[in-house]
């Protein structure tokens, strides 16, 4: 390892000292106070997590540390890194600090890397931007040697060859490793990681967290971890700063915070985090419920292929999957990205064509799908989309949007439609007056409830919910899930609940199917799949899920290592 760079953070003082930081943004609607008054310190070798929901100012705080705020922002206070105040130093000085004293790991590794350069070049770029030991330029050859070194540090196998690879030749998790390698290249004393695992699957997330922990243990790097995921915090953080609407609500060592949260907001936040095994919908069940009723969806050996480009074979998104959903039953479909779960949901709604096997939806064979013949059945199927912001036409009011299915299928009078919309909005616990509002005037949770109202307005027999809460904050998610559960019991519809989050699926579903690379590897009662998984993949999936409790998470981490190495 090259040691010609002075490693900051070995001294006694804090690596990072934020003192009464205020950040204001100029927007069309006037000034927005994103960060109101934040003070915090990060000591050498410490992992400090900043948690909060969207709009809490955590990302703005992180960006201020590197001086990455847009032109519309004005900041006050002090952000001291090794005695340099990032807010007031010159642009040239700031460039010197970035990379050498502090580096950043971004949320989305696939966009943080430039696709037209090799990863080695991108890592070397940071190294060559800073002067070498003698004050002169670093040669391309030296930079490459150091890039290989950095890749080795983050556990990329065969770094001598891989250094010449392009980003698309790596998997998502490996790309994030490369981004971390680039951040590490100059041995900064501090790494700011902004939601480093949010874009990754849970099994990959566990590996990246492991890597970050190793960095701290082996190289004494301090980490500022920005996240909304309490499980990740419990896994990695030494100290936790909870932010809410631009202010620090609570600051405590991780163990103390999870064991005895002091502030009400922290308590609520922790209570809202779904916890695998608690609050399971299938608790106490021993056999599959609702089997007496009609079978609404029946998939036999279902195969869905996407046509390949010229010369390359078709891609099998769903490969020989069989399952049934009966009347009144909630079927949970779990899987990581690329497992085919969304494709199945869309095929049932007629948005994707099936290519093989058999899929019967309300008795209609989807293999011979024709929009004209399927249309009458559409009123029996409701669909809740992932992103509530995008699934409403921005030009129509909530009332118009919710009434849309009713107007198409029942052609009611304006007064009837209005009355029905009012009823539905009230049953999803929104005031009926919200019918006159526009989608952008509602919060994320309110929009998703309106979306549920729209799906239910025709009293469908089957509801397909595709990741309905993954775009929501955790406290809002808890509310929406609770509502979903209540409404399902009240209306009695069957549901296909699709999610990547095991804990969320377990909260709602009676019967759970686990998808892996287009195949259904395991299905069974929720409590059995979660409590006693049979398939290796399910076991790995459950073991990799971080829980919001540092002590329990430490035990699970050991278990995960055991699963990985067995």
């Amino acid at each position, binding site marked *: 390892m090259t040691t010609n760079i002075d490693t900051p953070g070995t001294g006694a003082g804090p690596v990072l000292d934020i003192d009464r930081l205020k950040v204001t943004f100029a927007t069309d609607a006037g*000034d927005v106070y994103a960060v109101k008054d934040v003070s915090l310190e990060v000591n050498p070798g410490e992992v400090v997590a900043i948690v909060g929901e969207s709009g809490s100012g955590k990302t703005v705080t992180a960006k201020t540390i590197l001086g990455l705020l847009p032109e519309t922002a*004005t900041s006050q206070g002090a952000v001291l890194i090794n005695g340099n105040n990032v807010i007031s130093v010159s642009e040239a000085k700031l460039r010197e600090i970035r990379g050498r004293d502090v580096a950043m790991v971004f949320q989305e590794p696939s966009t943080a890397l430039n696709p037209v350069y090799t990863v080695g070049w991108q890592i070397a770029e940071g190294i060559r931007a800073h002067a070498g030991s003698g004050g002169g330029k670093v040669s391309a050859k030296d930079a490459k040697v150091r890039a290989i070194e950095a890749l080795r540090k983050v556990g990329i196998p065969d770094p001598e060859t891989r250094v010449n690879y392009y980003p698309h030749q790596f998997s998502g998790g490996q790309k994030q490793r490369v981004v971390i390698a680039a951040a590490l290249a100059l041995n900064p004393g501090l790494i700011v990681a902004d939601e480093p695992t949010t874009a990754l699957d849970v099994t990959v997330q566990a590996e990246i967290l492991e890597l970050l922990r190793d960095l701290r243990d082996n190289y004494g790097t301090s980490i500022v971890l920005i996240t909304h995921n309490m499980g990740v915090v419990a896994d990695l953080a030494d100290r936790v700063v909870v932010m809410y609407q631009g202010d620090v609500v609570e600051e405590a060592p991780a163990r103390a915070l999870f064991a005895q949260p002091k502030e009400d907001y922290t308590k609520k936040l922790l209570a809202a985090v779904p916890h695998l095994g608690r609050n399971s919908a299938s608790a106490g069940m021993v056999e599959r419920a609702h089997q007496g009723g009609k079978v609404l969806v029946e998939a036999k050996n279902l195969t869905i292929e996407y046509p390949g480009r010229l010369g390359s074979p078709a891609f099998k998104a769903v490969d020989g999957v069989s399952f049934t959903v009966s009347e009144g039953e909630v079927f949970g479909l779990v899987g990581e990205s690329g497992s085919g779960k969304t494709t199945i949901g869309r095929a049932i709604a007629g948005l994707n064509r099936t290519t093989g096997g058999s899929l019967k939806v309300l008795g209609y064979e989807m293999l011979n799908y024709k929009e004209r013949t399927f249309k009458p059945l559409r009123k029996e199927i409701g669909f809740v989309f992932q992103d509530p912001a995008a699934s409403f036409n921005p030009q129509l009011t909530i009332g118009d949007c919710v009434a849309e299915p009713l107007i198409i299928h029942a052609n009611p009078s304006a007064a009837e439609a209005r009355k029905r919309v009012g009823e539905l909005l009230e049953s999803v616990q929104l005031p009926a007056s919200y019918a006159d509002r526009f989608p952008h005037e509602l919060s994320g949770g309110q929009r998703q409830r309106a979306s549920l109202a729209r799906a239910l307005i025709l009293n469908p027999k089957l509801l397909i919910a595709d990741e309905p809460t993954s775009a929501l904050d955790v406290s809002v998610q808890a*509310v929406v899930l609770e509502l979903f559960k209540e409404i399902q019991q009240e209306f009695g519809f069957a549901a296909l609940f699709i999610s990547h989050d095991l804990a969320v699926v377990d909260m709602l579903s009676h019967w759970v199917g686990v998808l892996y690379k287009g195949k259904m590897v395991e299905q069974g009662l929720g409590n059995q799949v979660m409590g006693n998984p049979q398939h290796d993949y399910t076991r790995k999936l459950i073991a990799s899920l971080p829980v919001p409790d540092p002590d329990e998470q430490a035990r699970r981490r050991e278990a995960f290592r055991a699963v990985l190495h067995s």
Partner: protein
Amino acid sequence: MTKTTVSGRKQPLMYRLPVISHFRTSVGLQRGMLVTGLVLTLAFLLTAAFAPLIAPYGFAQLSDAAGTFPAQQPPSPAHIWGTTVGGYDVFSRVIWGAQTAFVVIVVAVVMSIFLGVALGLLSGYFGGWLDRTLVVIADAIYAFPSLLLAIVMSIVISHGQSSFWGGIVACSIAISVVFVPQYFRVIRAETIRLKAEPYVESAKVVGASSARIMGRHIFKNATRTLPLIFTLNASEAILTLAGLGFLGFGIEPSSAAEWGFDLNKAIADASSGIWWTGVYPGTAIVLTVLGLTLVGESINDLNDPRLRGRKKAVAGKGGPDSTGAARTAPDTAAPEIEARLP
């Protein structure tokens, strides 16, 4: 403004109209450009509307009570911008020319906007062979120099000569042949993008017909860029009209006043020191096109939040109460937690 957004009400219609809302969001240089453009455009529109009141003589008038107008007179009290070789009053013809230009813009843009938008929607939404055919045709039209195409159309429609309306319609059709593919392209691209939006899919899942999806969900969302294309096309229409007139395919001087035609007649004057016959119609073209282009470019910049300039935020001023609309979401989300969690 902050108040209205927070209370969840829509802003009054007046403030949501394209140009007015743009004016309200602009600052600094961008506002300066927009205002200059608006002033020039407004001057053009007023001139066109009140041409009969402003112009001292008719566009084809060659004599008055005092007798026949002298030819090629320099500016004088009787003819403030002088007269042309044919004895027309330059000032009057420039003023009347605004009216002709305005009518041509309106007719050309209206003709192309309806056809272009409708074809764009159908082509983008249905795709397939219809889309491919229309795109090939649009590309083929693009491949022609637009002025050449306009000349061909003008000959086909009116055999090169005609009356006021005949000439205007010929010019407008010639111009709209060039414009339809532009509207078609823009709307088609937007439609293809919007087709994949979850709210369009959600309409499909609900069972809405194609006509309903296009009319209710795509159309309104796809037409937001139209004011921009409209202003830019309007300036292009003036240039094409002037070009046609200059080449002699425009409207006869006895049917209407037309800047391009007057410029053509001023070619010979330029070398003999008679500047007023060319400068005034030329300036009219430049200012009108400049005005419309400035409005269009400003709208373009103001539509894009990344290009739009803003007043700098005042640090430390105000308190939590003065927080703007961006706070609406967390504020309304907070009571949810209060209400629902134990």
